[in-house]
């Protein structure tokens, strides 16, 4: 932890102690023909150096849109950010100019995409695409960029990197392509990496290789990592803390062990209960009834209320804030919050 503060501190001029990234009350909307789709409705999260935050959610929960807003790669329009702050090392990136934003993107915050085959340019060799990072940001020569590309490929353990540097993306397997994506994200030694479903397209044995590599490199460089995923298994393996998203809001945050042991939101509980368990063989699986909401028509009150087994009148009338979660005797549980009026009851459900 110390080394990162030192390193980043020197670069920023003054030592900075706060979180690397601090997203506050972020709202993102998309203007569509049928109305305004509210994809993100007031998201708060923060990541420190060396920390892994997992953002868990189903499709349409706003987890990727939040990441794209942080990265500054949303198409605006149709998207717009009516409210919110995205603070990187204390400075709101939404208030920065285009050029300044661009200097942060790639250099300080990098992103790994889900589908490496469509994220890479099919008509350029991987060596060229990796080297492009150095040429665009550091202005090095082509030859030097190529040497750097080989170094990077070796760092993510691509065998015979020297021979393969001139190969094209389609000549690599899925796992190797994802390694190249990781290499590209690492190229400029960023402080923060956002990985959007980095292993969803991969087979389990390859997924294990890639996740291991990512965790190792994260520790080596003491980077912050935001892992966006829908896979409860991957989260349990690597995350320090978790933010669960539903219909554009964070419904629960908790350190990883506590979230799995004692969820404080009915949606999280439902997700955990719908995983097939050994002792349930032959029985009906627990299923959350109904469907995720249409973002054009998010239900009033708590967005989860139509699917929630615990819903009362208050849930249909009022939007629950993110309540701090505490033990019965009032001892606050650090880092735990739940956007449910009945978090206390939910916590005791098990």
């Amino acid at each position, binding site marked *: 932890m110390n080394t990162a503060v030192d390193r980043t501190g020197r670069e920023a001029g003054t030592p900075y102690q706060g979180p690397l990234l601090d997203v506050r009350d972020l709202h993102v909307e998309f203007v569509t023909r049928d109305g305004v789709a509210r994809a993100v409705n007031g998201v708060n999260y923060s990541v420190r150096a060396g920390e892994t935050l997992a953002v868990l959610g189903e499709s349409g929960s706003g987890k990727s849109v939040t990441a794209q807003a942080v990265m500054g790669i949303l198409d605006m329009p149709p998207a717009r950010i009516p409210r919110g702050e995205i603070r990187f090392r204390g400075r709101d990136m939404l208030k920065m100019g285009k050029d300044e934003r661009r200097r942060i993107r790639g250099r300080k915050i990098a992103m790994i995409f889900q589908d490496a085959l469509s994220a890479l340019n099919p008509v350029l060799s991987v060596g060229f695409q990796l080297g492009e990072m150095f040429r665009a940001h550091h202005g090095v020569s082509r030859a030097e960029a190529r040497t750097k590309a080989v170094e990077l490929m070796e760092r993510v353990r691509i065998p015979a990197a020297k021979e393969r540097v001139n190969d094209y993306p389609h000549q690599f397997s*899925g796992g190797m392509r994802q390694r190249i994506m990781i290499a590209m994200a690492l190229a400029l030694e960023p402080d923060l990496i956002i990985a959007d479903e980095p292993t969803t397209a991969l087979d*389990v044995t390859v997924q294990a290789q890639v996740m291991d590599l990512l965790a190792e490199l994260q520790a080596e460089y003491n980077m912050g990592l935001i892992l966006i995923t829908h896979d409860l298994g991957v989260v*349990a393996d690597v995350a320090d803390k978790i933010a669960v998203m539903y219909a554009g809001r964070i419904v629960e945050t908790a350190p990883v062990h506590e979230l799995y042991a004692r969820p404080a939101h009915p949606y999280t509980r439902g997700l955990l209960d719908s995983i097939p368990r050994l002792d349930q063989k032959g029985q009906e*699986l627990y*299923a*959350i009834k109904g469907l995720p909401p249409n973002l054009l028509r998010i239900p009033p009150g708590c967005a989860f209320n139509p699917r929630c087994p615990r819903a009362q009148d208050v849930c249909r009338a009022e939007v629950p804030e993110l309540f701090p979660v505490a033990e019965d005797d009032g001892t606050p549980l650090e880092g735990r919050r739940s956007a449910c009026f009945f978090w206390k009851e939910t916590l005791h459900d098990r």
Partner: protein
Amino acid sequence: MAENILEVKDLVKHYPLTQGVLFKKQVGAVKAVDGISFELKKGETLGIVGESGCGKSTLAKVLMNLERATSGQVLFKGEDISQLSGGALKAVRRNIQMVFQDPYTSLNPRMTVGDIIGEPFEIHPEVAPKGDRRKAVQDLLDVVGLNPEYINRYPHQFSGGQRQRIGIARGLALKPEIIICDEPVSALDVSVQAQVINLLEQLQGEFGLSYMFIAHDLSIVRHISDRVGVMYLGKMVEIGSDEQIYDNATHPYTQALLSAVPVPDPTARESRERIILSGDIPSPANPPSGCRFRTRCWKAQERCSEEIPLLAIPTTLEGPAAHESACHFPEVRESAAA
């Protein structure tokens, strides 16, 4: 339960690789399915797991006779259907239906739900005569938990989970005896997956269906399957009851596969012993000699490169460990993670 409804014997599907334009010369073959034997019992669910490229989807296509087998036999109630054509094939196909992976591309966007589910009746009018079709389709919608009044809607008006229900209704239309499900829930959200799995189980009880359930999600396969087969590079490497495979795997590949699955329990993070395989699956056009897994196997010896291990019950093992496994050195791994 004992009766075999489907028996597969030494099934092979090779796709030829050719060179040249005019005189297409065969220079090799992609050995997608390379000598697979198993049987499916009446009313049972057989899970097939394996990574992409192992041939599990090709296997499904060959069983459906969408692809013609290169050699081998597929016996449906004792009759070989792998070489049938024309009317005889049509008659058999009624009994084997399929549910596809992607509910977004497997439904024609220009057809109404009623037409999609009713289309099988066009091909097999004997199942539902013309006048009864609308009623039959509405019944099917009801069976899969959709509102029968949705009959005139189009696929885009439904969510992913609902579309998969439409796909299942189409699969059920002809009252088949076997349904082959190729990754039926992998495109769905976690909270919706459980709904579809429950529906499949409920339908199996109601109509006495036999399922072949192809998936890569091992926990779902374990939940739904009576027996599980593990495929690697066109071969079945291990097959047995869920307890035999999940708790007493004797093939190194199965062990690695099971250990690599992320467990949704953070307390297992440290205690879990993972086997991380090096490298990728070799090309099925040029598989390794002998045992196909040997290039990634930590137990591989000289014998593995010379002799192809047969899928058989190892004589050295007993109890639940004694089930069919294609390895020269089969043994149950100690401290196998649950």
